[in-house]
């Protein structure tokens, strides 16, 4: 439908800057092209799920991300390109997680839920030790208050910059900086308490 808009005149995709391509895809998606939207989402979907999983648990993460993507498509006209498309998507996911997270915290013990999800299949000893450490890191992360977990998850799993995290979470840049530092400090304390030496 919007092939001309997306492909450009004999312009190989590799020569387009990422931003350029993203702008074209956003424009096409705004006009209702689901394929363009899918291409936009492709590079973010796994990170969106990784973040959501740390905020609302494994059982709800897929539903939250799916609903968020549909909402993102419907409200695409609100995306002005001031922030990155990734932070736009993550902002929607974080907002939905905020609504769902209290329910999750009541219905499941975050530590057990995440540690179980991160438990490895039995394998070579070195792999098992590394996986065990990873499970403990997950468990320590799950003990953080939501506001700290949000910022740290967006940084670690989505690789967002502080500015993008500020945009996604709706808090000032300085707050993001202090929340991430506080989150890592709390995690360090928690890991030490559990006898983990990463």
């Amino acid at each position, binding site marked *: 439908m919007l092939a001309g808009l997306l492909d450009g005149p004999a312009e190989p995709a590799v020569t387009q800057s990422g931003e350029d391509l993203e702008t074209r895809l956003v424009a096409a998606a705004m006009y209702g092209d689901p394929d363009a939207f899918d291409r936009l989402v492709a590079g973010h979907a796994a990170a*969106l*799920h990784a973040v959501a999983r740390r905020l609302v648990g494994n059982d709800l993460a897929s539903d939250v991300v799916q609903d968020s993507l549909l909402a993102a498509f419907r409200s695409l006209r609100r995306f002005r390109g001031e922030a990155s498309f990734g932070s736009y998507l993550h902002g929607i996911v974080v907002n939905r997680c905020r609504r769902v997270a209290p329910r999750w915290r009541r219905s499941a013990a975050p530590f057990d839920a995440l540690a179980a999800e991160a438990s490895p299949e039995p394998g070579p000893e070195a792999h098992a030790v590394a996986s065990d450490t990873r499970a403990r890191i*997950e468990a320590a992360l799950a003990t953080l208050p939501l506001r700290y977990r949000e910022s740290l998850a967006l940084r670690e*799993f989505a690789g967002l910059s*502080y500015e993008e995290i500020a945009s996604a979470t709706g808090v000032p840049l300085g707050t993001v900086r202090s929340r991430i530092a506080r989150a890592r400090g709390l995690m*360090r304390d928690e890991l030490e308490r559990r006898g983990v030496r990463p």
Partner: protein
Amino acid sequence: MTGSISRSAWERLNAYLDGELSAAEIADVERELERDDALRAALEKMRRVSKGMSVEDVDVRAAHGIRSAVRERLRRPSVRAGRSAMRWWWLPAAAALAAVALVALYTAGPLAPTQPRVHVQAVAEQYALALDELGGGQP
């Protein structure tokens, strides 16, 4: 929380790890790292913890499923068409409710006239006109 490291130094160290400092600040932190063993150890620990937090296979697999489901939903014409129709669903109901309220007000309520039939007829005509307009204005 951060042991012997001050809060501001801890924040700066985190920002350093995340590549969020200016060139001048980076140089400052690196000078401090050279002479402070505790700071260096803290940074290494943070790096190792960071490595333990990354997108996993389970997220990649879930992402495929999510994208398929979203693609399927978006290809359904009802998703978009349904939205615009849904936006106005309440209008006829609101108009009907308003008309009923007006009728009640003018017949049994404090505004009841001495000749109710005339007023009821006027309200009914207004209601019919409103419905006509709504019918014409439907998307």
